[in-house]
């Protein structure tokens, strides 16, 4: 193991090749080729937090299966009914898993995937080296956002997929029993599940954008992820204050559970449409703010 570096090879290197005359860039450099998605994806996939998060999502359905087989059957209370129906079959189990994960788990995972993607680079001090490559600032944001959203989407798809498999293996492949009465065939049920996953992905866009904006503003990844989760909790608390009346409709988490409207004999679209519009509006605002902030920000990390 050499104690110090050597420089024999430096003597043989050719002089620098001619730069691009118009932009002054080094030969071979093109802004549109910097930090390609597959490179950024590799950077994220090699991280332990990514593998741990996905591992947990795969494990959760098994934990739930265990919990259901341990606990005695005590149907009661006026829960939305998905709990009571959870062990009816694969699809009911999947729906329950989603119901249990909508409020917090998926929020945390999405906040983690999208919220820390910029802040963690700042905390590793690698952000400044990325920017001096240079990866243009808006491109850096775009690539990181796309990969973060891609991983989030994968998580939102992976959880029901794992739950469906686990539910099928342990509880059978029965058709969906609807909370408001009636059943759906497995085919229709799967189609509804796709609608639900799609809606969840759209509503979580708010969480993702919020985390992303905070991640651009702070150098502490914990601040970005925790901040996003805190604001979601705050929104949930405000949503519980019925005195706020229709103001609550504008709260980003007010429509989180509107996907349960896909569990009627005919899908009820109005609340989901409102929820999607609400989430998209916040997402556009927050992402625009993130871009504006980052475009001319002093990088001091």
């Amino acid at each position, binding site marked *: *193991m050499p*104690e*110090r*570096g*050597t*420089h024999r*090879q*430096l*003597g043989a*290197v050719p*002089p*620098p090749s001619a*730069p691009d005359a118009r*932009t*002054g*860039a080094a*030969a*071979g*450099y093109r*802004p549109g*080729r910097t*930090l*390609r998605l597959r*490179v950024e994806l590799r*950077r994220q996939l*090699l*991280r332990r937090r990514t593998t741990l998060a996905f591992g947990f999502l795969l494990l959760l359905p098994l934990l739930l299966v265990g919990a259901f087989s341990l606990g005695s059957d005590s*149907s009661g209370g*006026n*829960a939305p*009914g998905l709990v*009571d*129906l959870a062990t009816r079959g694969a699809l009911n189990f999947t729906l329950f898993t989603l119901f249990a994960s909508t409020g917090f788990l998926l929020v945390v995972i999405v906040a983690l995937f999208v919220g820390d993607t910029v802040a963690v680079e700042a905390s590793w*001090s690698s952000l*400044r*080296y990325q*920017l*001096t*490559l240079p990866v*243009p*600032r*808006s491109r850096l944001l775009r690539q990181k956002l796309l990969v973060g959203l891609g991983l989030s989407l994968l998580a939102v798809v992976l959880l029901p997929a794992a739950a469906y498999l686990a539910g099928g293996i342990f509880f059978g492949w029965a058709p969906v029993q609807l*909370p*408001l*009465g009636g059943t759906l065939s497995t085919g229709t049920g799967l189609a509804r599940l796709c609608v639900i996953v799609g809606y969840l992905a759209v509503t979580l866009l708010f969480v993702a954008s919020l985390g992303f904006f905070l991640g651009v503003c702070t150098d502490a990844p914990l601040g970005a992820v925790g901040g996003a989760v805190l604001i979601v909790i705050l929104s949930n608390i405000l949503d519980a204050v*019925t005195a706020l009346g229709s103001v609550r409709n504008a709260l980003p988490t007010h429509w989180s559970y509107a996907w349960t409207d896909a569990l*009627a004999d*005919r899908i*009820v*679209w*109005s609340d989901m449409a*409102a929820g999607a*519009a609400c989430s998209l*509006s916040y997402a*556009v605002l927050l992402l*625009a703010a993130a*871009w504006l902030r980052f*475009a001319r920000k*002093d*990088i001091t990390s």
Partner: protein
Amino acid sequence: MRRRTLAAVAAAAVLLLAGGAAVTALTGPPEVTTSDAEVEAGPEPSGEAVRLATTTFRPAGRGVLPAVLLAHGFGGSKDSVAGEARRLAEQGFHVVTWSARGFGGSGGRIHLDSPDYEVRDAAALVQLLSTLPDRVAQDGPGDPRVGVVGASYGGALALLLAGADPRVDAIVPMITWNELGQALFPQSATLDELAATPAGVRPAADPGVFKKSWAGNLFAAAGRGGGPPGCGRFDPAVCAAYQASAAQGAPTAELTALMAASSPARVLDRVRAPTLLVQGESDSLFPLREGDANARGIAATGTPVRTVWYGGGHDGGPGETDRLRELTVDWLRTWLRPGPDRPAATPAPAFSVSVVTPRSDGAPDDIAVRTAPGLPGASGAPAPARTGLPLLGPAQTVAAPAGGTPATVTGLPGLGALAQLGAAATAATSPPGGSALFTTAPLRAPLRLVGSPTVELRVTSTAPDLTLFASVYDDPGDGRSAVLPQQLVSPVRVAVPAGGRTVRVVLPAVVRDVAAGHALRLVISTTDAAYALPSDARTYEVSLAGDAALSLPVVPTAATAGRSWLLPAAVGAGVLLAVVLALVVLRRRRAVPPPDPALLDVPLVLQGLGKTYANGFQAVTDLSFRVERGQVLGLLGPNGAGKTTALRMVLGLLQPTSGAARVFGFAVQPGAPVLSRIGAFVEGPGLLPHLSGRQNLELHWQSTGRPADQSYLAEALEVSGLGDDLERRVGTYSQGMRQRLAIAQAMLGLPELLVLDEPTNGLDPPQIREMREVLRRYADTGRTVLVSSHLLGEVEQTCTHAVVMTRGRLVAGGPVAGLVGSATALVLDVDDVELAVRVLDDVPGVQDVRRTEAGLTLRLVGTPRAELARALVGAGVGIDRLAPQRGLEEAFLALVGEG
């Protein structure tokens, strides 16, 4: 092109705004004019002439309009519907209101919507409209285009008029009756066959139970005025029939005939006017079964019907006034068009219900509107499927007290909020032994109840007949009191043979979501304070019969589309606009300004660069210097001099507050492509701790997107000297190893300008020596190095040129030899001082020779020390020591102002 895109976006935004403003301006309500008139109507049986008071409402300045007759409710007059009339007129209708005979300013007596009096009066008003062709649209000679709207008493009139007069084009009857006999003497025991509709009842022939409190209230409402005692403005024949019936608790033959004549049920098969039928879920006077029967009857002939069950009714409940107004106007607009423009069938949805969920916190009830394509069992839609919920409970004996008191209090007619009290207190107000109870198991899944459950019972009685009240409670089963939805009960009065009989009971029609875990509780009570009860004491035995189950209609419903698409559409447009704008802005920013042609070959020029932070701290002030190709330039200064800030500005990480940096002639800005020709190491390494050293370098190079053969990875790895450690996680590295890896990373691709900030921090002496050599060799390849340091010796030994900064300002600059020379003194210990002084006089570059106690001191500019030593030794001077004086460092400190 770019400008054109921007203009298009701006134009779209302006158009949207202007459109919104225009719509707002145009939709303000028009002015409404009113005119009163008296209309001659048919005489009373007594021969008394009758004139009706009418008012016409029209939007000002409008020509020919479709007409609407707006009828009032029982006890009201044309004044009580003036507000609604004005609203309808604002929507572009010629609206006529009038006081029915026996009410308000009109003459005559009350005949309870008799076809010979009230209905004929309304037909006369239609006739009148046909004489106004310049104001009211006409479908033909003598046939005005007219709709009839009314609630309760007015609603029945609308139905009866549509059945009697084919000129009526659309009707909106609300909360009204189908058979007045069933409304006032309801019978919920049914024939064996069930009605096809969810709330339908085919009552047994036995006369029902007198709804005494509602009937009493209604008669009291008209009980003032002349005529026989207690009859008010009622027609004497009607009054007498009512009084006789009320006294015996069952309708007399006269009253039965009279109520049949006043019942829409009689004429439904002749109604051709499309009907919007609104019935209230909170209505114990004209419950849902009445509207259900009207809808079934009209739809049977193929006439378009839309059925709306809303949350309110005669008992109060949520009003939903705005929604009902919208529905009404929509219905009238649809069907009061010229004939060819009318739709061929009922526009969907033909059936809607309001699912009302009361809230415990006192806030307004939650109302969710759910729809179905049609009322099941009507208009050709299939009858609802039925599902059975098994009931549990033994045969029970219940007693009816003599005189009918104490009685169960369920609802108080017309007292909305107060009636809720009755529901909560039911358990307490039901006399002991007066009710039988059967219950289902807790529900496994939530249930939406739409319509009437039914149940089959076996009953015996100590009397030849029996009077019972059946109801279904929603029982949370957790200790909280059970709730009777809308306080509705189903009265049953049937004859009972000695051995008992079975009877099927149709329970009250409701719309309610029952949560999972709740049970349904069937309560059979012998008394109800709102009804006339048998006066003798008796006992009944009640037990479950048939399949011992509650049979529930299953009505699939969904949410209305409504206007909910408006918000998403608006948001969608906004999002699209934002994205387009963002793309345009980003495209503009990507343009690279042209370089300064004179500086194309100069690696770095700083021109008056300055940085003042937001808190007012001036980190760098007016900094200007050049770095030429092939130089190793040292940026020298004590800690806090602003070196790192300056380098960050050179790299486009910080925005200068004044001046500019140019790299190879191109102005530096965030993400400027020319930065690709700089390799940087600033303020410590930035490595991914979970990856190995090699993975770090590979990923870093991949991030540039440049070809792998330009990376010179091997050369960089050789410089790092990490060997096998390259395969270890960076997190396990020592500080020096990280430092070397980061410098190697900066060297990837062998950039033309290498910027290193304090590169020797954390390195040990052999590594420092090697680093110096690397930098020198690097510059020899035609590239340039800018290295910052706070150590003078470091710069002196590594660099060809240097600039000195302190407190953010440049204080000196030039070749290192000159810089160092100007500040460097040597100490010389020799055996022969005199000879040495003479020799020194001849050596070029020697200045300022002084004798001190320690020996000789001198300054040497431009001549290597070895040259000096050779000259002295050649002249025979013996040298003990030739060394830099300690004052060297002091000289530097003097330069930077900290001495």
